[in-house]
């Protein structure tokens, strides 16, 4: 049985290649001058430079968190280059003008931009390393008043909006990596959905880390005004490198009264080879503030890549009757480590949250769910339901669950359930009886295990996620 499993698990990373584009890379190291340089390169206003410097000063006084259930060599923050941008040839007027090498990269990744944009009606804000290169459908979105583009652009075009919301959900001093991000973030997406507007299409961004040894520090800010709604997709792959790359992104979501934000992620960055050499360190802070009444924030993630994942997409349910959701599938294989989960902070009355987390660990990997459900004294009638299931494939991996439940209001109801299982011989036998081979059977069982989460994904992502899991675990069970 284990031979087929082994094969499944040991599929090499399919997206490992380096695109040769001239990059404008800053020298390694971090100090105030680096930050001033980044700010100057991006021609930023004074207030943003101050924001960065304040974060940097705070970062110097902070210590790297030790509590996650992951092990890695100490990161030398001075050995990282904090800025890398593809050298602009000239201002781009249309997609045709985009560097053909770059376009080919996306095609190799299976994201033919025109096709995908046209067929699926998706507007893609492409982030290549750190600078937004091309944005499609901008015009169409602009007609309904939606602002969607890179954050560095928004800093110039809509400084008031950026200034009003930046750092309000994830404060400058929130945690070590978020603070570092606040100091050195280079680019990311900005999205503003005005009052009453339902975004006519799914918004999408495509992250990719390219230049070797350059950390990527994205900053994403999404604001949905009263009654607005948006579905945002984020997909990630990264090329193959042997030095660990640090990725410390910050994502902030703000939902005002009756607004609805759905944020979906498929993450498949380079996870290191079968001996655990290389791979991305993914230390991300994602948080949504359900600020208004009846607002809703929903996170869906499929985490299959990265050597280390440290990520807790959270919801602060401040508005009365607001809703928070978290649906997650985390797959680890070989020597991958994942410590991921969510935080649901109930503040408003009658706030509701749902957590569905599915962890699959194979090989020598280590997969942890860490979650917090906090019911504040003000959250009368709050309700939470959490479900965390783990599946272990092979006897060298581990699965852990650390759910923190803190209840300060007696009218709240909180329920948490967790289970651990494996793919049983009897299940495989049942499939075999019906003429279904092991490989297919495993894939079906795993898809069934993750069904609750996949159902939450937008269609094209659901297809991609199913495939991704298939080849991630190819040969692990048999």
């Amino acid at each position, binding site marked *: 049985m284990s031979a087929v499993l082994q094969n499944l698990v040991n599929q090499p990373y399919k997206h490992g290649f380096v695109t040769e584009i001239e990059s404008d890379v800053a020298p390694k190291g971090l100090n105030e001058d680096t930050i001033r340089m980044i700010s100057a390169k991006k021609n930023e206003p004074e207030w943003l430079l101050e924001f960065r410097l304040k974060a940097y000063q705070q970062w110097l006084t902070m210590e790297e968190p030790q*509590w996650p259930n992951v092990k890695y060599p100490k990161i030398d923050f001075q050995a990282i280059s904090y800025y890398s941008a593809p050298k602009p040839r000239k201002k781009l007027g249309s997609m045709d003008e985009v560097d053909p090498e770059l376009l080919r990269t996306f095609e190799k990744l299976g994201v033919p931009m025109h096709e995908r944009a046209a067929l699926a009606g998706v507007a893609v804000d492409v982030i290549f390393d750190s600078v937004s290169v091309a944005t499609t459908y901008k015009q169409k979105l602009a007609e309904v008043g939606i602002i969607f583009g890179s954050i560095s652009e928004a800093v110039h075009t809509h400084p008031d909006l950026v200034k009003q919301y930046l750092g309000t959900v994830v404060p400058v001093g929130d945690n070590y990596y978020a603070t570092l991000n606040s100091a050195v973030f280079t680019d990311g997406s900005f999205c503003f959905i005005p009052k009453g507007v339902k975004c006519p299409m799914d918004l999408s961004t495509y992250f990719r880390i390219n230049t070797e040894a350059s950390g990527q520090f994205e900053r994403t800010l999404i604001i949905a005004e009263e009654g607005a709604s948006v579905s945002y997709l984020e997909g990630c792959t990264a090329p193959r490198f042997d030095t660990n790359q640090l990725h410390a992104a910050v994502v902030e979501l703000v939902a005002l009264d009756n607004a609805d934000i759905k944020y979906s992620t498929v993450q498949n960055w380079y996870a290191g080879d079968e001996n655990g050499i290389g791979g991305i360190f993914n230390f991300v802070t994602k948080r949504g503030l359900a600020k208004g009444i009846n607002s809703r924030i929903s996170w869906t993630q499929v985490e299959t890549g990265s050597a280390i994942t440290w990520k807790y997409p959270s919801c602060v349910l401040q508005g009365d009757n607001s809703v928070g959701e978290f649906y997650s599938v985390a797959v680890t294989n070989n020597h991958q480590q994942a410590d991921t989960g969510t935080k649901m902070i109930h503040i408003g009355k009658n706030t509701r949250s749902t957590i569905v987390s599915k962890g699959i660990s194979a090989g020598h990997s280590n997969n942890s769910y860490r979650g917090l459900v906090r*019911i504040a*004294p003000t959250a009368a009638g709050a309700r939470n339901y959490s479900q965390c299931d*783990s599946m*272990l*494939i*092979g*006897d*060298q*991996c*581990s*699965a*852990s*669950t*650390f*759910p*923190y*439940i*803190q*209840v*300060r*209001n*007696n*009218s*709240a*109801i*909180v*329920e*948490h*359930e*967790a*289970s*651990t*299982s*494996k793919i049983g011989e009897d299940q495989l036998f049942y499939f075999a009886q019906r003429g279904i081979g092991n490989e297919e059977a495993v894939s079906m069982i795993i898809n069934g295990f993750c069904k609750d989460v996949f159902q939450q994904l937008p269609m094209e992502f659901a297809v991609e996620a199913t495939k991704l899991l298939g080849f991630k675990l190819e040969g692990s069970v048999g």
Partner: protein
Amino acid sequence: MSMSVATTSGYLENLLQGRSQLPASPLAWFNRLRADAVERVGMLRVPTTRDEEWRFTDISLLTTLQFQPVHTTSHLQAAEVEHFYLEPATIRLVFIDGVYAPQLSTQVPGVAGDSDIVITNLSAAVSAHATTLEPHLGRHAEFRNNVFTAINTAFLHDGALIIVPRNVAVDVPVHLLFIATQKEVASYPRCLLIAESGSAVTVIEDYVALQQGVYVTNAVAEIALADNARVNHIRVQRDSGQAFHIADCAVSLAQASRYQSTSIALGARISRYNLNVQLAGEGAECTVDGLALIAERQLADTHTCIDHIKPHGTSRQLHKCIVDGAAHAVFNGKIMVRPGAQLTDSAQSSRNLLLSGRAHIDTKPQLEIFADDVKCAHGATVGQLDSEEVFYLKSRGLSEMTARNLLTYAFGAEIIERIPVASLKHQLEQTVLEQTQRN
């Protein structure tokens, strides 16, 4: 909230001063064990809420109390304490403020006969049973990283000792009664239970107070089960409402042994109970149940760790908290399945009832699994009484208050009913009933 290391180390030094009155033991390893513990205390500090294990339990108040232990034997007579006695527990060891009280304790029937059961105070038996004790005493209750266990071990002198020989079943429950009579003292109760292969015993570890007052109890219990042994361990903590109760219990299970634990926390201003169960032999089984029933400004913290080291282990855990007033209950239940502990079957449930708007709960059921062929599940719920259940009882003519009391009582009774000693069960049921009716 956060204390500097300097002030807490001063506190620890002062605590250890009381050791000077302890007599040296004739056994070298015994003295060495104490010396190791003293040395360890010097390297540790009092935990604060910045330490993960103490995150929800603020014991800074405790560090303002520098109580010393009592060394003189009490002259308390049976009439003053017999209301604490249990029927049919005819074997009883009584400790007054941590000091053994021979006049209140009962002799073990047949101790001189052929059964060789040892149920006595530790200091009386330590020389005679040195070879049996050495591999167990201070070996199960880890004090490397636990400052309170280290302090208790530094004060190691007397305690309760139970040795049940091979294939012997003790047919009456053993009652270990720890009575607090004085204010502003510290006591360091110690229990050691060695259940040899195929033996069986029921032990009740009972902490009571003769009067209200501030005092500190720092208790350590070690329980070793050899192959096929069975131990039923009932622990009742009914200390004074102003007292501090910190306790550590370490249990080690050999092949096919079975350990059943029911711990009830009713008293103390702040209580903390660490229970570590190691399933160190194949096919070991344990049931770990608990109930915390607290009100006013009480804090009850239970940390359990069930460690599956060998294959085919089974564990079951049900922990309940009923929290009223401005009380605060903490539960941290860790289930560990080590590499190779295949076919482990483990289920854990943390159920919590909040009776008042100011009460609060921090619960964390935790799973750490390193083997694939296992069945592990846990669940946690927090809530108030189900309004439909209340309505159902009201529709049968019960008043709102009676209905609520009945449901609250039933919630707690599920744990108490598991106690196999009828008299204790009855006492505790009364206590729960009184507490629920007080509202």
